[in-house]
């Protein structure tokens, strides 16, 4: 048996390191008014004003080709922008999904009309997307989804419900996976659409999460008329397209940096107290973080070289989620401080991250599903 993955080390090109300094400079002033609670959430935190500023700098669609209005820069440079934003606790949530997957999907499979209509708004940090995959009876088993889009003249009539849709309340569009025909093949008969969420018959209902926040939603479609011009790619090709989209969704630095703010806050507490108990644990976490970063950068390098690191991305996401989820527990063990929304910075971060950490191994594919993918890569399935 050969080991099916190969993470070769990847260095950042000089331009990327120059860009890193520019991003740090920008963030040092752009974040002064962003509250700690929002910073702790990293890419769960959203601020439309901030997204517009990022768009102005040309840092959305950074690696998209210039003919689509992107900056045509490398995936490595894009990676630098992302990791600097995340570790600074920038509220990137509004534009994150459009930049990461919806825009690239439209570039790859969309029509010129779709591209002209939608990409400019994404690049400005004004047009936001949400992901319409999960449904009430379709979680890990995405192929069990039931929302139907039936062709009628030059329209598709959509009926059904999407669930857990993050950020739908502020998005203009959803990239949705619908059933367009019944097929023998379990993965056949799906298609992807760009759905304008302001269409009649679309209802967005908030779902309050365990921490009391309005993060995700239920989106109900009742006889919604989606113009056929909003079909993305070919009818019936939805499954393959969504698989490519998931590769983008799983491969970035957000998959191990969600609790980063807490680690940094922990170090601050230690430095101020001059208390060296727990110093070994901090070092251990630093070793894990550094290794994850090297792995994640390696995945970015493979994407940059046009390879398909789907398996490597699953490895990083699984290890990354374990790391992110360990941190709140470790922080709790090391510090004798209650998680407290009204407490000091450390307590605020602890309060938020303790509560949202269970989602790290659910969203974007559960731990068990990722490990199943890895096991298949190992030749066990």
């Amino acid at each position: 048996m050969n080991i099916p993955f190969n993470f070769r080390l990847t260095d950042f090109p000089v331009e990327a390191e120059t860009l890193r300094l520019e991003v740090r400079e920008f963030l040092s002033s752009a974040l002064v008014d962003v509250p700690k609670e929002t910073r702790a959430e990293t890419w769960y935190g959203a601020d439309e004003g901030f997204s517009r500023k990022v768009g102005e700098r040309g840092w959305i669609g950074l690696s998209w080709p210039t003919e689509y209005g992107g900056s045509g820069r490398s995936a490595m440079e894009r990676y630098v922008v992302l990791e600097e934003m995340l570790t600074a606790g920038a509220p990137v949530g509004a534009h994150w999904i459009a930049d990461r997957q919806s825009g690239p999907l439209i570039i790859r499979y969309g029509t010129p009309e779709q591209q002209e209509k939608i990409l400019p708004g994404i690049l400005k940090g004004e047009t936001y997307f949400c992901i319409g995959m999960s449904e009430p009876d379709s979680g890990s088993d995405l192929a069990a989804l039931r929302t139907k889009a039936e062709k009628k003249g030059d329209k598709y009539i959509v009926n059904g419900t999407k669930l857990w849709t993050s950020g739908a309340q502020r998005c203009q569009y959803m990239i949705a996976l619908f059933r367009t025909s019944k097929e023998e093949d379990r993965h056949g008969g799906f298609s992807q659409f760009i759905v304008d969420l302001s269409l009649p018959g679309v209802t967005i209902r908030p779902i309050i999460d365990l921490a009391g926040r309005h993060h995700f939603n239920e989106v109900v479609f009742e006889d919604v008329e989606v113009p056929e011009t909003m079909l993305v790619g070919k009818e019936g090709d939805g499954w393959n397209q969504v698989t490519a989209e998931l590769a983008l969704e799983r491969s970035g630095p957000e998959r191990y940096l969600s609790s980063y703010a807490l680690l940094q806050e922990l170090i601050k507490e230690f430095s101020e107290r001059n208390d060296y108990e727990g110093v070994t644990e901090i070092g251990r976490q630093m070793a894990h973080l550094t290794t994850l970063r090297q792995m994640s950068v390696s995945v970015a390098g493979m994407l940059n070289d046009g390879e398909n690191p789907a398996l490597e991305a699953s490895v990083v996401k699984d290890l990354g989620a374990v790391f992110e989820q360990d941190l709140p527990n470790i922080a709790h063990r090391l510090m004798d401080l209650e998680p407290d929304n009204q407490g000091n910075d450390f307590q605020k971060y602890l309060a938020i991250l303790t509560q949202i950490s269970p989602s790290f191994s659910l969203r974007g594919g559960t731990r068990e599903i990722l490990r199943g993918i890895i096991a298949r890569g190992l030749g066990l399935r």
Partner: protein
Amino acid sequence: MTDETSQLLSDTAEKLFSDHVTKNCIIDAEKGTWPDELWSEVIANGFNLILVPEELDGVGGNWMNAGILFKALGRYQAPIPLAENIVASYILSLAGISQPTDSILTILNGAFVAENDLLSGSSPRTPFASYSTHGVVLYKDGSDLKVGLIEIDKNNLKDNSNIALENRGHIELDKVSFIENSKVDCDSNLVKKLGALMRSNQMAGALESILTQSVRYANERIQFGRPIGKFQAIQQDLAVLSTHVAASSVAADYACSSMDKGNPDFAIAVAKSRIDDAVSVGAGIAHQVHGAIGFTYEHGLHFATRRLWAWRAEYGSGSEWSKVLGEKAISNGADKFWPSITQGDLDI
């Protein structure tokens, strides 16, 4: 070395070890037989001189190349001091000292004093000491840091071994003269750092070996009418093992590449710390998947797992290196934390 020569090196090592490091070879070595044929092949290929510059009749390779050999040693559990000889000949070369012909080197590691060019002190767990002809030592002489080459005198040596039954001798020196010694300009803690670097890489290799053995076994062993690898619980465990194998390999490479860039302190500490954690999780899973057969001497899984358990404690445990990282991170302060990671440097 180019990518092509790296590939060639890797293929040559792979072929050499798969031909010569048989189960019997390892068992015999555990009983105290020196694997003569294997060692001769290794020397014939110049593997021991991989890091010695060409001017000193070495191969002139870099640490990424050495990493290939360290990992292969771990992957095959080759019972020879090749990693130690690579590091020892490198340390000699720093001082411009050539390695005596037909010598087998070991690295002395302990507390030493030098007076009138005579060395005293002890090196408690010296790798393969009983099979070595010469020892390499980095020591302070007044305010100078020096590299010395001494002959190993069996009268000063007490045999011992680690739990993998690799020879670890206790060497006691009382005013021993040098064959050669010379001033050197390097880190005074170099031996420990390079030791941690080589063991990290060897562990990354041994972890690969327990993963491939475990997957193979899971596909062969039938219970309840099917290969145990078809059970989801086993699949999930092996997936976890593989994530730690991947992390270890990256951490080990990162340490080698940082060494090549001349700034290795951070990355070596990261590697030894990270891989220590991988061993704790990984060895446990490999044994669980193998059931009772993996608990026997007859089955070879333990050649890798016993090495992993021994190596993780050598040249500083993961905790010791974690402490180095943690202390620096805290004294640097939170604002420098992320920059220190992106620069791979604790002294920023």
